[in-house]
């Protein structure tokens, strides 16, 4: 029986691909969990678009400074070597291509790399973009963490996004609760390449759960994550 990854396990898996020395922006929700699961021997600078390069752990007790928050409005600390700056400078850093990787949440990713993650057309609620469009358009690499399917079983990896786009053709890699997949840039019309699949899930089952053409990498292997409490 295949066990889908938990939120923390998905974030853990995404964190393993952050290299030593990287400048990384983590989106709200599951992506921000990656910071606590990155290997401890790597020096990674987390960027927060409200004006921090070098976000540290969430502040506790006497560390709490009400005028120091991250993009999720959490009261945070700063790591050694951190800097703070204003929003225009922060987005120049993003747009100018100085951030190596951004990990974002997603509603849908299309086989050509299109990302939709800002407007799910919720009735009675207005839209919220925040920094997602700038990050998707400006970071050197865009990785997405999201569940493989919606609660009704419909696919979130699709041939074409039905929700409004955040940016076209920007996503390189997707981490889901079932698999690690790369956008298949070589395929005409787009698709995905499965790199890792959770044990117990067949290739047929993953193909059925995916709403776009899917192939399997020659070295496609088990997606193994530690048991995170």
């Amino acid at each position: 029986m295949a066990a889908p990854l938990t939120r923390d396990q998905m974030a853990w898996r995404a964190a393993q691909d952050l290299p030593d020395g990287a400048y990384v922006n983590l989106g709200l929700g599951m992506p921000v969990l990656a910071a606590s699961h990155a290997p401890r021997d790597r020096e990674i600078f987390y960027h927060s678009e409200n004006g921090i390069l070098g976000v540290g752990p969430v502040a506790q007790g006497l560390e709490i400074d009400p005028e120091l928050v991250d993009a999720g409005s959490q009261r945070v600390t700063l790591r050694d070597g951190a800097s703070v700056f204003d929003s225009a400078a922060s987005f120049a850093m993003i747009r100018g291509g100085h951030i190596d990787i951004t990990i974002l949440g997603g509603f849908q990713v299309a086989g050509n790399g299109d990302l939709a993650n800002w407007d799910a057309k919720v009735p009675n609620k207005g839209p919220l973009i925040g920094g997602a469009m700038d990050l998707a358009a400006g970071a050197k690499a865009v990785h997405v963490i999201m569940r493989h399917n919606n609660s009704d079983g419909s696919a979130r990896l699709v041939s074409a996004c039905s929700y409004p786009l955040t940016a076209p053709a920007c996503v390189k890699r997707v981490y889901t609760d079932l698999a690690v997949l790369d956008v298949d840039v070589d395929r005409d019309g787009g698709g995905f390449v499965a790199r890792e699949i959770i044990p117990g899930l067949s290739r047929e089952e993953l193909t059925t759960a995916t709403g776009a053409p899917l192939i399997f990498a020659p070295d496609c292997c088990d997606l193994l994550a530690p048991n995170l409490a």
Partner: protein
Amino acid sequence: MIDKRVDDLDAALAGIAAGATIMISGFGNAGIPANLLRGLGSMGLSGLTVILNAVRRLEESDPVFFADERVDHVITTAFRGPGQETAAFEQQWRDGKLTFEIVPQGTFAERIRAGGAGVPAFYTPTAAGTPLAEGREQRDFNGQARVLETALTADVALLRAQKADRYGNLFFHGTQSNFGTAMATAARLTIAEVEEISAKTLPPEQVHLPGVYVQRILQAARED
């Protein structure tokens, strides 16, 4: 003699009129000019256009802005209230009493920066190929579509800093500066509330925002 210090909220906000366009700094709970916003709320001005990162912060600072329908138009990156409930401003939009323009956050910051720097417009990759670019002026640079964005300016900017001196030089703490640095340059009247007015002049290397951009400073403690 230059002295931009004012004694109280009334003096800080004097002259702001109905129909004004007001930029409001703040991100999360940092750099919010909460004292100035409560003062503005008590002035009863209507027909306001507000330019701020997240509309919910204005409602949280003083619900009167939306309860009494003081705001006609919003330029923002987040026109959404917290949770599943429909916020007062979301309801007014649905009722046709309020309009908004939704802007990606980096474009929002850069439009304000451009407004303060005398740059009328610029091309940016952000939002190209998305619904926000539909019907907009676009141009290809190096084979890639870029979207034309115009500068934002305002009558008034409200912001919060840690320290000021009588010249209006400001020093920010933590992530307090956020949009305030650019907003101060883009508004005709910039009013800063600060935790502390320094008896001594700020050291030049510690001036994050030069006093030329700041017209009034009010000492006002942060309230949580």
